[in-house]
């Protein structure tokens, strides 16, 4: 790890002010990706703005139609939240299966989204449920937020403050896990949202994406049978030692059908 300056923010506003003027400043949320990257010297920010004490970034609110989760809310808290379990059980289950217990106690939704790991679970939830990412500057809909592997629409210094999820009619997330890292080789979230049927896929290699052909079929008929004929091309997907692009393409189909069937 290269040396850096650590600054502790007392609030979201404080954090946004602290990052101004730093040579290469980064917000530190749960650190579950950032600290690991810094240890490997893959990332070497000059300054870290620690958000741990910013209590205005934590918390979960639900009004029956929308669930809003503060950016610094841990995966464990989302999974255990009675509000999330009641309104969007698929989201609670997804959060409860991220990484392992230790990671879930520290990792946050804001950090996960800002990082946008191509095999992360939360991007599938946000894109699949049609959520909105709120920052200290604006509101960004899911369809505009994800720009590819580790890339988002966030501008330099922009801070995610919360994520608001419209409550879906039904939804389910299924993840096929890499046997070693337990990251998603492919993860699919299927949801019938107020804005229509949505299917989001993570693990493909270049970041989370929607499958329009499946969404069209499901809008007419929400059933696994409706999408058995839809094949995702292997050409956009990655091959690695855990699976070829063809295998990933096959898994998208299998997991999407199973997610549709599981969505109550």
């Amino acid at each position: 790890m290269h040396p850096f300056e650590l600054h502790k923010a007392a609030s979201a506003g404080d954090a946004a002010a602290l990052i101004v003027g730093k040579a290469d400043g980064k917000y530190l949320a749960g650190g579950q990706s950032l600290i690991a990257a810094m240890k490997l010297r893959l990332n070497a920010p000059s300054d870290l703005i620690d958000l741990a004490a910013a209590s205005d970034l934590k918390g979960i609110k639900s009004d029956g139609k929308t669930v809003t989760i503060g950016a610094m809310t841990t995966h464990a808290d989302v999974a255990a939240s009675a509000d999330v379990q009641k309104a969007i059980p698929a989201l609670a289950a997804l959060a409860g299966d991220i990484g392992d217990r230790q990671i879930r106690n520290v990792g946050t939704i804001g950090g996960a989204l800002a990082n946008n790991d191509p095999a992360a679970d939360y991007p599938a939830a946000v894109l699949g449920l049609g959520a909105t990412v709120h920052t200290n500057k604006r509101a960004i809909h899911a369809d505009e937020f994800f720009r590819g592997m580790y890339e988002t629409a966030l501008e330099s210094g922009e801070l995610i403050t919360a994520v608001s999820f419209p409550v879906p009619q039904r939804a389910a997330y299924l993840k096929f896990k890499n046997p070693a890292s337990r990251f998603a080789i492919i993860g699919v979230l299927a949801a019938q949202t107020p804005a229509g049927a949505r299917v989001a896929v993570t693990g493909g290699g270049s970041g989370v994406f929607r499958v329009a052909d499946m969404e069209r079929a499901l809008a007419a008929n929400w059933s696994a049978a409706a999408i058995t004929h839809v094949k995702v091309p292997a050409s956009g997907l990655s091959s690695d030692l855990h699976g070829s692009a063809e295998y990933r393409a096959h898994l998208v189909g299998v997991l999407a059908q199973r997610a549709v069937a599981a969505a109550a």
Partner: protein
Amino acid sequence: MGGTAIVKALDKVIAKGRKIAAHLLEAADTDIEFKDGKFSIAGTDRSIPFAQIALTAYVPHNYPLDKLEPGLNENAFYDPANFTFPAGTYICEVEVDPGTGQVRIDRWTAVDDFGNIVNPMIVEGQVHGGLAQGIGQALLEGCVYDQETGQLLTASYMDYAMPRADDLPSFTVATTCTPCTHNPLGVKGCGEAGAIGAPPALISAICDATGARDIAMPASPHRVWQAMQQPKAA
């Protein structure tokens, strides 16, 4: 091997202990027998416990110093006359998800013959450990190198799949006993059994489930799925 070497060294310790006991009991050492932890004059109830012999050996006030060195310290070497031949049968039941190639081990029964067993708890632990290693080899673990650069791709546990508790079923482990005929304890090796028997049992079960003739280890979901895309063996 260690057990028999210890037995032979102890035989020498007891032989020396007899001489010390003979001196203390004022008898001939041929009249001394060692039984139940005591040295006694055969046919009488005059005896001395082992601990007192050991104390005498190291605090030799009443001791034949002109004939015998103090101490109770012996070496023995043991070169086995032959290998031992532990044997066993393992039965493994798996469920294979046809959509993904994922293998789940439903049940595992391991019966081994290790001859006489000195510490049953440790032996069961040895088998559990061996099974975990054998299942790891067959199902999860593998070093992968980039074909062009020689770079190790499975360079951390993020890519090298070490078996974890939730990858494994609860094992049913049992033993039968055919004592080894050429060592005094009648024991056979047990440490490697699990790692030897597990991979063939598991791969055979996966082949049986999928109709594949063979699947290279590790039988990752990707490999099993690829094998299932081939036409089935006749």
